[in-house]
């Protein structure tokens, strides 16, 4: 019992504030999430610069880096055009961008960072961006039919329809947050609670499941659902 109590103090899952500052009388904090996002962004920028360098002197027979870059672009293109059809060209950039960002964020747990997507602030913003895109494209494509669509099938269902519109970003963001957060919590519990013997080797398998597998699946699901919702509204 005593052992468990002392171990419980080592559990380290929360976001920590590193540095505070005041702005307009409000107190704000630079937290571990900001640092993780900066590292993730730096990684993406470095990868992009490397890919750009290699594509600048592209060859008939592609080398290793050119091959990888072409593979990534082709796969992302396939995902977008597979689920959006003729609307794909407008959303290719955005979906590819959030796919790479969420994927690298999710797997950053392997490299010892606290994944940025395990902070609800980050995933909620991603959900809100999706929400704005859904509504904007719905109004742009369906015009007035968008607003009458809220009163279907019978007018008394209007509040329910509005609530279901607002539930979309919440469920999207909570899904991503819950999956990554549960992985983070389980890894932290494992590192804090088990005897030293199980800390060698075993966490590798857990990391592969919780960080790589769950992270990749949730990235795919987030992008897939974003595209499905937008496509739904555009076909009205």
């Amino acid at each position, binding site marked *: 019992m005593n052992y468990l109590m002392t171990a419980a103090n080592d559990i380290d*899952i*929360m976001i920590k504030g590193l540095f505070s500052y005041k702005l307009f009388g409000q107190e704000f904090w630079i937290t571990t999430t900001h640092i993780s996002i900066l590292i993730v962004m730096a990684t993406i920028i470095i990868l992009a610069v490397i890919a750009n360098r290699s594509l600048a002197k592209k060859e008939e027979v592609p080398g290793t880096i050119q091959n990888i870059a072409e593979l990534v672009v082709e796969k992302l293109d396939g995902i977008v055009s597979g689920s959006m059809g003729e609307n794909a060209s407008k959303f290719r950039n955005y979906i590819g961008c959030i796919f790479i960002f969420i994927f690298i964020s999710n797997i950053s747990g392997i490299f010892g960072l606290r994944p940025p997507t395990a902070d609800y602030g980050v995933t909620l913003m991603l959900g809100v961006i999706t929400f704005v895109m859904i509504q904007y494209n719905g109004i742009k494509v369906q015009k007035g039919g968008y607003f009458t669509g809220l009163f279907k099938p019978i007018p008394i269902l209007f509040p329910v329809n509005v609530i279901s519109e607002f539930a979309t970003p919440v*469920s999207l963001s*909570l*899904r991503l*947050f*819950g*999956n990554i*957060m*549960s992985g983070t*919590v389980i890894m932290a519990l494992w590192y804090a609670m088990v005897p030293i013997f199980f800390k060698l080797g075993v966490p590798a398998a857990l990391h592969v499941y919780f960080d790589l597998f769950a992270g990749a*699946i*949730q990235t*795919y*699901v987030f992008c*897939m*659902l974003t595209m499905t919702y937008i496509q739904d509204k555009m076909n009205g």
Partner: protein
Amino acid sequence: MFTGEDLILACSAIGAGLAVIAGIGPGIGQGIAAGYAASAVGRNPGAKGDITSTMLLGQAVAETTGLYGLVVAILLLFVKPLI
């Protein structure tokens, strides 16, 4: 010896345990989805890739309700909003 805070902590732990019972529903749902996907692959092995991605998407959506329970449990245990 016992303070009100202790009582709230104990009840929060019980509540967190009750909240993750929400995992039962998604578990059953995901099992049913995987079973149908397996039988679909058995009937049409050529469509394995499409069936797998559809199954994973459906399972991830079905998982959401269980995750709501998990989020409530995590809030109760680590954020302690009631104290």
